[in-house]
């Protein structure tokens, strides 16, 4: 297994071919991917600003990971099911989740924020690695539904679960790998190795690459350049096809870099150098893809103006939408804990509502 991450677009924007990772460039909407990356970066920028203004308590930035996320997400079909971490803002964007709804969790108006069944995009999971097992279980459900390996492209489906390099050290992630391999489940583990788990560099987690970990579990690991949207798209398409056809799991490692601190509460100056960050800023995934689009004449001023216009509207919508997110009603924790509200909890709710009313 080669340890060099595969790329399909060079830093200068020229196309490369790869023996393993094939991409039919004719089937790819280049300007669309570019738009996705720009708009999801704008979601991120606006959210950071909202946090600085005190409108959000916290925000985990995706800066630098747009290509990995957009590439992975645009390989998915609507019927595929996604289990994210808490940083998959660009995946949420591609799945059609209203970006305003991403803010609620970080504003404290909700612990979720969207209906996962609408876009087959599950809620953000904050406990590292926990969602990998949910993905495995969901994939077991797909197998039992008979929606795998039928050859019918409208029927076969797969699960894609996102995880980071830190999650590789969690026992639950390793259990998920065991289950996925043993039962040959239709699941794609998409690991964005952004090289930092808060302050812990990848060397704290492992002596081998993320992709190499798959081999010991008995399935394929692929290492791609996470700042190359085409490489990520191609790897994800291949892995999803493999899964939907009944050939089992794949672990994709998208090697990238978390350019911002872990969250807005983190101070990355305490554990890493600005020089390292500068190096990765020079490898920006959006700039690199822009060079490809420019060199192939796929982009013009009209399109750029249109995206800029969309960005402004989106930014405005996020600012207004954030401030207008409704506060949850004080009875909601009580009502949402059980389907069958226990008598004791009903009494506690009444007691609490009386207190809230009196305090007003």
């Amino acid at each position: 297994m080669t340890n060099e991450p595969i790329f399909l677009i060079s830093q200068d924007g020229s196309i490369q071919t790869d023996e393993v990772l094939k991409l039919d460039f004719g089937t790819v909407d280049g300007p669309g991917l570019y738009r996705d990356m720009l708009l999801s970066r704008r979601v991120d920028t606006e959210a950071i600003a909202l946090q600085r203004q005190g409108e959000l308590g916290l925000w985990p930035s995706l800066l630098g990971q747009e290509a990995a996320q957009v590439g992975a997400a645009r390989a998915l079909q609507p019927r595929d099911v996604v289990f994210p971490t808490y940083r998959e803002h660009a995946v949420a964007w591609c799945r059609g989740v209203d970006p305003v709804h991403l803010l609620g969790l970080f504003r404290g108006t909700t612990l979720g924020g969207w209906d996962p069944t609408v876009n087959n995009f599950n809620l953000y999971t904050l406990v590292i690695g926990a969602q990998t097992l949910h993905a495995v279980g969901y994939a077991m459900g797909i197998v039992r539904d008979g929606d795998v390996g039928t050859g019918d492209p409208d029927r076969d489906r797969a699960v894609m679960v996102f995880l980071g390099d830190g999650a590789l050290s969690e026992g639950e992630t390793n259990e998920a790998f065991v289950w996925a391999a043993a039962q040959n489940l239709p699941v794609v583990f998409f690991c964005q190795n952004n090289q930092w788990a808060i302050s812990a560099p990848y060397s704290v987690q492992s002596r081998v690459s993320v992709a190499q970990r798959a081999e010991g579990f008995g399935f394929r690991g692929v290492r791609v350049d996470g700042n190359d949207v085409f490489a990520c798209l191609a790897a994800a398409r291949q892995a999803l096809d493999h899964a939907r056809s009944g050939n089992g799991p794949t672990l994709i490692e998208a090697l990238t870099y978390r350019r911002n601190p872990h969250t807005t509460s983190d101070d990355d100056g305490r554990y890493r150098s600005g020089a390292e960050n500068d190096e990765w800023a020079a490898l920006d995934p959006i700039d690199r893809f822009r060079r490809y689009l420019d060199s192939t004449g796929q982009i013009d001023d009209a399109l750029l103006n249109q995206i800029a216009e969309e960005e402004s509207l989106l930014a405005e919508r996020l600012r207004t939408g954030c401030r207008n997110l409704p506060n949850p009603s004080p009875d909601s924790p009580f009502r949402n804990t059980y389907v069958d509200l226990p008598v004791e909890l009903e009494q506690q709710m009444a007691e609490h509502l009386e207190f809230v009313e009196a305090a007003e």
Partner: protein
Amino acid sequence: MNQTTSKMPIAHALNLGLRHAMEADDKVLLLGEDIGQLGGVFRVTDGLQKIFGPQRVVDSPLGEAGIVGGAIGLAMAGYRPVCEIQFDGFVFPAMNQIITQLAKYRHRSEGTITVPVVIRIPVGGGIGAIEHHSESPEAYFAHTAGLKVVCPSSAQQAYDMIGLAVRSQDPVIFLEPKRHYWLKGNVDPNRMPEALEKAEIARAGNDLTLVTYGALVPVALKVAEICQQEGRSIEVIDLRSLSPIDDTTIIRSVERTGRLLVAHEASRTAGLGAEIASRVQDTAFHSLLAPVIRVTGYDTPYPASRLEEDWLPGLDRILDGVDRSFAY
């Protein structure tokens, strides 16, 4: 489903209940270690893989977090998984999934996602076992919002309650008193079951209310019998549901008897006994003729099995507790 009443051990009643639940709903499936060909270490799932196949009776890899986490995903995909944890002491590797995910998912999703997962766990001591095989972890679960926690004490209850647990929309921790797996009782599969969260008055009485559950219910009934000979009439309440707790049944009883004793194998501090005592003094303070007595396991790890007979709340320790209440 047209069997008539027959006598069977609790393990068989659970097996029958699971079989009927699986026949009634093809989304019900079982996950656990050694539950297929072996039928589980206690044989509760004996023969079910032969009937329903390996896709519905799944021999899982050896990983409890995977069993529960996988069950959560299956539930999201529309299935109704019933997990078997092999022994009480082995549920702890799954605690993250149970507490941070299973119990909280409905709340997190504002009611859009429910995860109807049942987790069966053989619990309790008295079987001469090695470490981690005799524990009573119920208070951890009862303390966790979002879970129902139940514990049957007889074959009929086992049959009824496993069916109700599988049909529950909320996740259920289903505790099985392992030392009584082979205790026989009549099971009528056609009986209309009591609601899952209802306590049962196992024996009516007037002078003292003895609340317990699971493996201590038969012990409590013996206590009541002995007390009867001494002219004391004990009412035995079989709690069945540890979360939610059926306060009404307990309080109505204490209002009549004026005395309450709670017995459980689990350690005393922050246990179910403390919770029940607190609820009773909340609502029935003026009915109490004596302090609430707790007869429980001690606040130590479960001891080596040569010590368990005296360590566990048995007949003599509970009788002593009854004496203390009347002596007040």
